[in-house]
């Protein structure tokens, strides 16, 4: 069984774009600062729409902002 893991480099991109604040990014993409914090800590997976809006703000593709990998739950079985 696998679990999706979505990583991102929003924090890095914010600093590369004139040290944009979380509040400013939230206002520009239409979400709350709390969601940006959760995204940066990888504790929340955004909707596709939000992911595209964030990527557009930074002038990147979604792939450049978000990363995807699978985590195997049953690691013991995998090793066998």
């Amino acid at each position, binding site marked *: 069984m696998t679990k999706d893991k979505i990583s991102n480099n929003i924090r890095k991109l914010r600093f590369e774009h004139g040290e944009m604040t979380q509040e400013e990014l939230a206002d520009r993409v239409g979400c709350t600062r709390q969601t940006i914090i959760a995204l940066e800590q990888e*504790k929340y997976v*955004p*909707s596709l729409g939000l992911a595209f809006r964030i990527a557009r703000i930074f002038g990147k593709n979604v792939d450049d902002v978000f990363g995807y990998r699978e985590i195997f739950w049953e690691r013991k079985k995998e090793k066998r």
Partner: protein
Amino acid sequence: MNQAQIRSIYSLVIWGTVALVICGVFFLWGGPESFAGDSLRILIAALGFGFGYLGYILMLKITRKKSSATAMLQDESDYEIARRANGIALMSVLVFIFILSMILFTVFQDLGVLPVGWMWFFAYFTSCFGYIVHAVTTLFLYKEMSGND
């Protein structure tokens, strides 16, 4: 702390107090068997529940805020938390009803009759339980998602 978290804390206080009042009136003051025949206890339980709802509605009105053009109050992550909290609260209430029903059935099976006062307790406490679980779940999910915020 956002609006949903503030409301959850108030909700927890309100329904926790109502649950304590109902449990006190039901269990400590004469016990479940004599509850149905005691109109004063029925009245106190009903008033406690009524004031609980009144307080809850007032709290919703007082804590009501509207999203402005610059600051958004709720977004998709809040809706996701609300959706998960609703689901968990619903399942918890169903499990609670099932377990309490089974306990009552087991305890009163040999007697063949159930003191009708238990139905009052069932009705009142299940409502309080649902609100309490929803509030606790909401606060927990925000804590999980926000980390150190």
